[in-house]
């Protein structure tokens, strides 16, 4: 029964769903890595992106690619505003010890956004069938065009983000700020701006992904919960705060899920998936892709 075709198909399924997870995790990892906050409202940023995409395409009739850009830009602004308005004041009060408490703040943001969405948009799902209907077939192996789109989006975003962080001045400044804010300041880096931009990028990523995945994850108030959990898993497996790690851990988790679902007896695949993730963590506790950078 498990012919080569099936295995190829499963691998494609796993990688493509994993690409989504990786993308969801990337923004979370970035925000955690740089600001040191576990952004529990990350799923809600995703949700806002999804709503924005829905309203742009379905209500205003904007073509999808442009709508994607609009919602991404919008979410960047939302992210910057959130950082300036809520997170920066907390950091100012807590000084160097602020990080630890950050996530209660973001839990608050999560609850507020979720319920405001419920009040404003109602509980129903706003979704679309597909941006790009149809599928590609290679013999018995099929992949829907939506998944092709997502894979391409994931690859592009991963590459762009990695290059940005690695090669650009701003990217280096972002990493430097994470490692030693005071030293970064001394070199002339305005860390407050860096924090805001970083959060903005994280939010924009979440928003872009929310937009891109509208056909699978329709916009509704609690959609963020689903997303957050996956993103969380990916960030943990990848090594906290490692954007690269998250991007790579995504497909890994996708593959684990796909194979567990295909091979495990009915119902146990969820247990097996979480056990496997646990095993990964026990074997490689600091996450799969993190590297040591400090020494005693």
């Amino acid at each position, binding site marked *: 029964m498990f012919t080569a075709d099936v295995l190829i198909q499963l691998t494609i399924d796993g990688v493509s769903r994993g690409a989504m997870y990786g993308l969801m995790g990337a923004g979370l990892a970035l925000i955690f890595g740089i600001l040191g906050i576990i952004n529990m409202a990350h799923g809600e940023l995703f949700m806002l992106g999804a709503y924005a995409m829905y309203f742009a395409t379905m209500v205003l009739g904007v073509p999808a690619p442009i709508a994607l850009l609009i919602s991404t830009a919008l979410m960047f602004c939302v992210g910057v505003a959130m950082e300036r308005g809520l997170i920066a004041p907390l950091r100012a009060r807590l000084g160097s010890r602020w990080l630890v408490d950050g996530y209660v703040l973001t839990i*608050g943001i999560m609850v507020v956004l979720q319920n405001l969405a419920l009040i404003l948009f109602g509980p129903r799902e706003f979704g679309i069938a597909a941006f790009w209907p149809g599928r590609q077939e290679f013999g018995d192996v099929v992949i829907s065009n939506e998944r092709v789109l997502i894979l391409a989006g994931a690859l592009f975003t991963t590459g762009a983000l990695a290059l940005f962080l690695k090669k650009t001045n701003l990217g280096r400044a972002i990493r430097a700020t994470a490692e030693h804010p005071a030293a970064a300041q001394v070199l002339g880096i305005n860390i407050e701006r860096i924090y805001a931009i970083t959060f903005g990028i994280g939010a924009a990523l979440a928003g872009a992904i929310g937009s891109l995945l509208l056909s699978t994850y329709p916009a509704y108030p609690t959609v963020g919960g689903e997303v957050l959990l996956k993103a969380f898993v990916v960030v943990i497996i990848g090594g906290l705060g490692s954007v690269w790690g998250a991007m790579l851990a995504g497909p890994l988790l996708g593959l684990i899920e796909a194979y567990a679902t295909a091979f495990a007896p009915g119902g146990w695949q969820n247990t097996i998936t979480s056990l496997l993730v646990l095993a990964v963590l026990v074997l490689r506790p600091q996450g799969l892709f993190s590297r040591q950078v400090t020494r005693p």
Partner: protein
Amino acid sequence: MTSLFQKFRFPDRRALVICALLAGLAAIPSLVGGRYIPAVFTSILLFFILGALFDFMLGYLRIVNFGIAGFLCAGAYGSALSVQYFHITPWTGLLVGGLASAVIGLITGVLTLRLRGIYIGLTTLFVMETLRFAISNAREVTRGASGLTVGGFTPLFGIPFPRSEPITYYYLILALVIVTYAALYAIVRSRIGLVFKAIRDDELGTSVLGIHVVRYKLFNFVVASFFVGVFGAFYAHYIGILVPTAEEFGIQRTVEILTIAYVGGRGTLWGSLLGALFLVGMQEVLRDLQEWRLVIYGLSLILIITVFPSGFAGALRQLGDRFSSRAGKGAHISTKGDA
């Protein structure tokens, strides 16, 4: 005589306040009467002690236990299932629940405690999920998502525990909370507590003093797991129905507990009482506002954390410092961008 007095004077100003609080807590429900207030206070106490247990790990060892609801789950099912299959009493069940959870805590701990705080906590997230899914699937035993119905506590010393009477459950949990709190307090105040603080500050620095860091972490973790399990067992017999959903034994419940610990003030244990009073209480007071209630709840989380970054307890302590002559002692005001 004087030495005794001196010995107890310092910590016990706080202890006195706590005793007064507890006495108040014991009195309130019976003064108010009805079934609602006892039910709400039962919930407050439950979340208080879970918050304190969370804080016992977080505030003292920086272990952010994202899987705490899983230990609650282990305790709840541990007790409920042994009552069902081995016909023990729910009273023994409290112990069994605690042990079930402690064993899981021990295994998790042995596997993960080499790691830094946040990793341990995040790993427990998967322990929780594994447990939850396993319970969900082992339908023949646990009834899975259909829910396991659990009987109430059996009469003890002639006192009946009908589930319809929340007041008896309230006094039961009050007693459990006092015992647990006393145990935690004693640990935290002892040398072990001092070592916890040292580990929190600098693990390597502690280990080169000949202290087996992992053992202390394990101790902390297993003790916390045990008590969480006990309260899981209490919960099972109190609520009467167990379902392995995320709201009950998953991330949502964890987040509820975590917010209480933080809003109350981490590193204090008693802060969670303020957190639970405020957060659970507010939800009740605002009940009529429906969905706006949750918006207000979220906003108040944001507000509290921004205004009192170290929680209610931290705010109170600062207030106390300002009025006490010992001001400045232990006050380390951090500087902006301090290197």
